[in-house]
């Protein structure tokens, strides 16, 4: 008899167990599976640390007399390597660093890099979250409307009124206030008041009239087409280039950066949500809800969005990572948060001229960005595996 190398000895262990425990909720199961993915846990842990550091940084470095001063210039102490001791004889008492040593060294103006890194942490954190938060909200809204109300037709007169409305804003921008506000007002009034009236009195009762009026009241395009074309238009802009353009043209501020990144990265979420809604809409639980008379909005918020959220969550986590990288890139090019406020990107940018003399100015912020972004990416990928029904273990 040949040696049975192909046969594996049966595994010991529990197989006759008591009837299974009551089934776990969805989040519990997801959490269990997430725990198995060591890398994702690591990502979460690093994020937790980052959050605390950023918060601490905000508290320790803001205000007029901060605990750790990131803006204090000490030209006599410039370009000291990390862990070097301050030259006490050359400093006034206020200039001596709180910790007794320069933990991360000093930059070309003698500023404490440790304090600057702490200050920058908060920027990175908020830019990431706010920008992506904005993008996700816009994406879910537009994607949801396109997915759920996609077939609602928009009439030509409604399109006309909308154009007037938007043109009004353009006129405002060109400083033609009178005509601008007039157009905005007209467009709004038409859309909100006249249009539904027309729908009720004319279209429902008598159908479409003939002639020019009929032409004006005909269907122009569907809601879905409208939103998706808008997405297409936005996708034609190369994203970093667009962000750079807008940020360069607007006055530099952290809020502008967050808003711009948010306004230019919602397209992916919108597509995901729309796709999910399109497939969810056909499912029986939606039909059942409608048959029971549940209102559209309630169906969307209470039933469909929780189901559609999974891909959005994954892309949001990864989006935070991208937003942090984008902000760093913008700072590097000189368009980030204005000096003297520190961000990791501009520490790196300041340090690029001294790359051979003071490599820590490059390595410290670079590595910090790398670790934080990596943690988000790992967590995002872990989420993707957990939320993907195809890969579920049972």
């Amino acid at each position, binding site marked *: 008899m040949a040696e049975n190398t192909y046969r594996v000895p049966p595994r010991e262990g529990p197989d006759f167990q008591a009837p299974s425990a009551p089934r776990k909720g969805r989040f519990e199961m997801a959490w269990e599976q997430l725990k198995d993915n060591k890398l994702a846990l690591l990502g979460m842990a690093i994020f937790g640390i980052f959050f605390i550091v950023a918060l601490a940084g905000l508290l320790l470095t803001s205000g007029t007399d901060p605990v750790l001063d990131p803006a204090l210039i000490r030209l006599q102490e410039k370009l000291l390597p990390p862990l070097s001791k301050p030259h006490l004889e050359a400093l006034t008492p206020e200039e001596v660093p709180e910790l007794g040593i320069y933990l991360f060294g000093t930059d070309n103006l003698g500023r404490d890099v440790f304090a600057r890194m702490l200050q920058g942490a908060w920027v990175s954190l908020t830019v990431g979250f706010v920008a992506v938060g904005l993008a996700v909200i816009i994406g879910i809204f537009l994607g949801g409307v396109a997915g759920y109300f996609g077939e609602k037709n928009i009439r030509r007169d409604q399109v006309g009124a909308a154009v007037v409305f938007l043109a009004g804003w*353009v006129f405002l*921008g*060109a400083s033609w206030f009178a005509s601008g506000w007039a157009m905005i007002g007209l467009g709004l009034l038409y859309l909100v008041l006249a249009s539904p009236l027309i729908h009720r009195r004319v279209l429902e009762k008598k159908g479409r009239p003939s002639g020019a009026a009929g032409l004006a009241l005909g269907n122009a395009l569907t809601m879905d087409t409208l939103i998706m*074309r808008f997405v*297409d*238009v936005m*996708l*034609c*802009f*190369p994203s*970093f*280039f667009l962000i*750079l*353009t*807008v940020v*360069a*043209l*607007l*006055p530099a501020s952290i809020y502008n950066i967050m808003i711009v990144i948010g306004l230019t990265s919602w397209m992916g979420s919108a597509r995901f949500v729309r796709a999910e809604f399109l497939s969810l809409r056909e499912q029986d639980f939606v039909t059942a809800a409608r048959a029971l008379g549940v209102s559209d909005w309630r169906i969307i918020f209470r039933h469909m969005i929780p189901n559609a959220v999974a891909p959005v969550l994954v892309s949001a986590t990864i989006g935070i*990572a991208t937003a942090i*990288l984008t902000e*760093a*890139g913008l700072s*590097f*090019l000189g368009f980030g948060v204005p000096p003297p406020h520190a961000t990791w*990107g501009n520490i*790196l940018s300041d340090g*690029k001229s001294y*790359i*051979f003399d003071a*490599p820590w100015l*490059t390595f410290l*912020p*670079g*590595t910090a*960005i*790398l670790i934080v*972004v*990596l943690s988000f*990416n*790992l967590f995002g*990928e872990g989420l993707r595996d957990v939320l993907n029904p*195809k890969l579920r273990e049972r």
Partner: protein
Amino acid sequence: MLSFMGRSVVQKIVTLFFVSVLSFLIIHLAPGEPSQADPLNPKFTPEMVERFRKAFHLDKPLHIQYLYFYKNLFTGNLASWKDNQPVLPKIWERFLNSLPLFIVGTLITWTLSFPVGIRSAIRRGGAYDRTTTFLSYLLISIPGFFFAYILIILVVNSLHVPVIGMETFGMSGASFIRMIMDRVWHLLLPSVLAATGGIAILSRYVRSQMLEVEGQDYVRTARAKGLPAEQVHYKHALRNALLPFVTMFGLILPGLIGGSVIIESIFSWPGMGRMAYEAILARDYPIILTVNFISAVLVLAGTFVSDVLYMVVDPRIRL
């Protein structure tokens, strides 16, 4: 098929129109003026500013400006505001500089991503897979400029080759071979940099596509027929897994412009990315808008090519 293509082209032209309007609005509605037209700029006397404004129609309403701009663009008369040179030749020159960078980078990315991704998928969970996964995450997460400096330090210190710019000064007198080598050295680092990020992302995508296909029923049928492993993986699975990538191929086109502002800044490479960056700094509207327009054209053309390729490659889609 032709009617679909026709409809698609019309749709894209409409989209292009909206893109042009939107980009025009964004530029012109931003606060601040281009330096030459800024009345507060001390370098220009008020008369010069006035002349500038008249010459470039800045005093006219927005929609007239729009029409002037695009008329000039399409007739080739569009001039840059910085130095009054025609825009299109300037862009073309920079484009030729960016081209080798783009070609080499894309070549490296696409030729390396597939073997790496496929091998990772076939030996899922093995040492190769775990190593490449780890490296991919690392490369996706590292800020481009940081990685660039690491590479520069490494290469300059160990290999002692010049890396900044497109070529070393004073090279034009040297022999042909040395010139070529010099060019290659200068091209190498930025292309590798551009490629690594791309490889990280693309190979992961290849891997996940391959994994999904390997789980399909027809792969099981192929094995059940008694086909050898290479045929199962490389003929049956791969052919299906590659479908989405053929379509992605069309979308490389926009990358020509996307180029990288950052990489070109670091390496002082006089390419399109940098030109766009300098134009933004100088508020040189014609250049900004033209680059934007060209980029939109490339995106739409790329999408169109993708759709057509998809129809060619997938027998299930014959419109």
